[in-house]
């Protein structure tokens, strides 16, 4: 395009040879800017620019996330109910454990008896108040030593008596056997 034609294009607006529109048609913007103003752009600039712009946009349009596949207004009440159930379960458990640990003087002795072994005597004594310790010791001596001893003696007697019965039964069986062998046979 020659210089004079370009000049006419620039200044002759009335004839319709407008910068962007010639005879009513809109011309390519890049071409016109290059032609009239000498301004150029890199090849494929606008497609690359679009990609860059889209990448740089702030992420504010992601879909709202669901909670465990459920919408939040359903999931949150369910989660709250589960938490409540767990809390109630723990509360009940704590209560029953506490009841188990309410040691009265009678309960202490019973508990300690349940433990049973004399080896636990020292440990058991730690669970009792000092004021109840004498009572506990008396109870321990009575129950753990004297009574046990009596029971042991009774067991010995039982063994002796049983052995007498056993001997008699053995004699009887001996006699019966001899009777069968010697008399009948």
């Amino acid at each position: 395009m020659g210089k004079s034609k370009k000049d006419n294009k620039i200044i002759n607006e009335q004839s319709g040879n407008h910068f962007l529109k010639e005879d009513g048609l809109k011309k390519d913007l890049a071409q016109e800017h290059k032609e009239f103003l000498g301004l150029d752009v890199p090849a494929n600039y606008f497609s690359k620019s679009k990609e860059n712009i889209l990448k740089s946009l702030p992420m504010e349009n992601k879909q709202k996330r669901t909670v465990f596949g459920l919408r939040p207004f359903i999931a949150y009440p369910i989660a709250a109910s589960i938490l409540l159930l767990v809390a109630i379960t723990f509360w009940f458990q704590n209560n029953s454990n506490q009841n188990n640990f309410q040691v009265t003087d009678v309960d202490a002795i019973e508990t300690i008896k349940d433990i049973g072994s004399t080896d636990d005597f020292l440990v058991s004594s730690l669970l009792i108040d000092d004021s109840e310790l004498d009572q506990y010791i008396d109870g321990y001596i009575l129950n753990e030593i004297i009574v046990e001893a009596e029971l042991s003696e009774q067991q010995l007697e039982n063994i002796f008596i049983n052995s007498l019965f056993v001997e008699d039964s053995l004699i009887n069986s001996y006699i019966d056997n001899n009777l069968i062998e010697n008399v009948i046979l």
Partner: protein
Amino acid sequence: MNKDIDLIKRLKDPKQKDKAFSDLLDLYQERLYWHIRKIVLTHDNANDVLQNTFIRIFKGIKNFQEKSTLHTWMYRIAYNESIRFLENNKIKTLVSLEQDNNSYINNLKQDEYFNGDEIQLKLHQILSRLSDNQKRVFQMKYFDDLSFREISEILDISENTLKSSYYSVVKTIEEKIHQEEIIT
């Protein structure tokens, strides 16, 4: 206009915003680029400003009150971003009549993507000598093909002032170019 109304509706819908914004880029990216480029002059600067412009558009669209057209609103953002860029970088490309316009022409010549010949450089020189408002109205009216009403909304100057300023600039350019022809 109807297309813009539909586009605004889609842009404000969170489900359709991403696709609508892609369509918006297809429609307006190039136009806004050239609008910006004529203010900041170099391609690299225009690229930066264009990106900032569309980020602002994306963020601001939900609050767009439709007091003006979408077209005008975006041009206004692009223009403001260009001016902000120039102020931040202290690049005096739109020099006033009292100031030296060498930096304007020098910046232009240094741009890798300026391939203008002598007459185009002359045109730029003439433009550089205009006042800021004269330059702006001429660029927007003549090169961006905006109406006086739209330019009035962008620059916040009355239409009558713009019209008189524009025709004065056209006359000045004609005279200058004729003077160049006579000299050459």
